[in-house]
């Protein structure tokens, strides 16, 4: 199978969907001509491949970009718009939260808003807290939005293709840290569609369930390998891939099997999506739990700039291992 980086996989999804459906168009700051003149960037070369009519470089205008998507979608187009960095979702959020998410409901189900908002997130690239702030829980809090956050290039491609074909607004988070890690991605010869709302067991295990999305999935896998090798603890790693709708069945099935749960995310702990997962498990699978639920999350601080400070807040394999060991009484 072809090995693609995350960005290349996203681009392949965009190309395939744009070829398949003329209603799909792209818009955003630098989606055509970019300061990142890099073949690994998701929208590299698309302006040349398609036309300025379908690949729209916009002014620095997040509210307008999101509104453009809402309006174009209700007319039957399939906008895939880009908001550069997750914190700038706040500028676009009137259109996303009050309009994209609610207008179908307000129409009594008569209107459709098939739009995708692509946005960079993750644990950052050293730019500080105005460029990195993981707001997926904010988005998942809004009924009417689907929230997708893949961890592998293959999932990114399949989920984005599905998102573009979905008739609902989808917020699609792209983890910046995963950008250059290649992985297997099915090519154009197969119809690679990963369903929205289905979690994926990235590693089977019997002793503890580690739930994550985005970059922390890789840390969870690292932790699981180390726990197996050094402690004989077999961790099951569940990659949610989609936060809304949440794959409750997969989550509960896994926890009922292992009896232990660690949730990992790059977003701040308080009010993060890990709380939702913990609450779901506590409500539905309490009798199966052999130990308390643990959350391994970013600290409740804005992301600091200085490398030693920035490193301090990031959930890594070591912190996951510590949490697991507490649950299986290895300390």
């Amino acid at each position, binding site marked *: 199978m072809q090995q693609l980086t995350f960005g290349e996989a996203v681009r392949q999804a965009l190309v395939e969907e744009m070829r398949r459906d003329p209603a799909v168009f792209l818009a955003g700051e630098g989606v055509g001509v970019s300061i990142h003149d890099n073949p690994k960037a998701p929208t590299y070369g698309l302006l040349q491949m398609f036309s300025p009519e379908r690949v729209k470089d*916009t002014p620095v205008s997040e509210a307008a970009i999101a509104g453009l998507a809402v309006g174009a979608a209700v007319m039957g187009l399939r906008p895939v718009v880009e908001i550069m960095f997750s914190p700038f979702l706040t500028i676009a959020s009137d259109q996303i939260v009050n309009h994209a998410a609610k207008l179908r409901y307000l129409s009594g189900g008569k209107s459709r808003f098939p739009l995708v908002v692509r946005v960079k997130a993750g644990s950052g690239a050293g730019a500080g807290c105005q*460029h990195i702030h993981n707001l997926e829980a904010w988005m998942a809090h809004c009924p009417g939005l689907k929230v997708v956050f893949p961890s592998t290039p293959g999932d990114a491609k399949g989920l984005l293709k599905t998102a573009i074909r979905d008739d609902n607004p989808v917020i699609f988070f792209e983890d910046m840290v995963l950008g250059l890690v290649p992985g297997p991605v099915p090519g154009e010869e197969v119809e690679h569609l990963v369903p929205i709302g289905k979690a994926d067991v990235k590693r089977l295990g019997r002793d503890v369930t580690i739930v994550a999305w985005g970059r922390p999935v890789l840390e969870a896998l690292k932790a699981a390998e180390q726990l197996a090798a050094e402690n004989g603890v077999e961790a099951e790693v569940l990659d949610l891939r989609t936060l809304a709708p949440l794959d409750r069945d997969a989550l509960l099935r896994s926890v009922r099997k292992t009896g232990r749960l660690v949730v990992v995310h790059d977003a701040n702990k308080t009010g993060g999506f890990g709380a939702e997962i913990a609450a779901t498990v506590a409500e539905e699978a309490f009798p199966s739990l052999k130990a308390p639920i643990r959350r391994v999350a970013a600290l409740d601080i804005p992301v600091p700039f200085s490398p*030693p400070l920035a490193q301090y807040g990031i959930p890594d394999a070591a912190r996951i291992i510590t949490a697991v060991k507490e649950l299986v009484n290895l300390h």
Partner: protein
Amino acid sequence: MITSTKKIDLLESMLLVRRFEEKLTEMSRAGERIAGMVILCTGQEAVAAGVCRALEPEDVIISNHRSHGHLLAKGAPPGPVMAEILGRRTGCNKGKSGTLHIAVPEVNALCTTTVVGGGIPIAVGTAFAAQYQRRPVVTTCFFGDGAADEGSFHEALNLAALWHLPVIFVCENNAWAGAQRHEEHTLVQDIATRALGYGMTGHVVDGNDAVAVYEATREARRRCLEGKGPVLLEMKTYRWRGHSEFDRQLYQPKEEIAAWMERCPIKLLQEALLAEGVLTYAVVAEMEDRARRTVEEAVAFAMNSPWPEPEEALENVFCD
């Protein structure tokens, strides 16, 4: 109107900014010495110096991602600014900010934001406070031509004009916003004309002429303090380097850069002062030397400063 002493001050300030940023270019090329982005104002020093040296110490500035010039010209200490850029504990913001959002309240550089357009409404707030407190303080807000496309720009200008707030909106039009040239993101040739739509005064200024920038700012400041309301100044200048230091500028015509480098703001003022007999070559050399030494000292201060301890990440989220 402008004294020779002031002109020399403008030159000195521009020289410091230029040397400071050239050093950053050198360091970022040298590899891993700077984490994150390095975004410079090389070629735009006349705006930073001309505006900030026209302000009084109590006057407030609100800056954006291209802030080093604004901060240094406003009097921020080069050592702590450099230390912040390098993420050290002795940095202006203890390493929390890095290069992009440095605040130096000691010199009334109250906010630098890297959210494009984000600072413009904040300037409405600081200007309102000064008006409310009946203090003779003007707020100056720096932003690019790209930022003038954000809703925040329009909402802020309307409110500032409506309430006659003492704020100078400085649009630093360096011809580019990311990889988009001015004509590719707005149809108005002069951002300054937008002032009209809000019942405000707007002027286009030669942003490479430090003296013109200084005089326009002094005049705007006077108007503001007389209660005549805000002013929008559009400084026409040019971004010599890429959006940031990792940008290879493939979209930016080489001839265009060369033409603007001919109009280097430092060279223009220096030549004028030499021609006027205000400066001699010897004095210029001394000034160059002083700027270089200041920067070397700033780098040494930063490099000899400790990194923050990881746990310091937890501090400063709230007031104690």
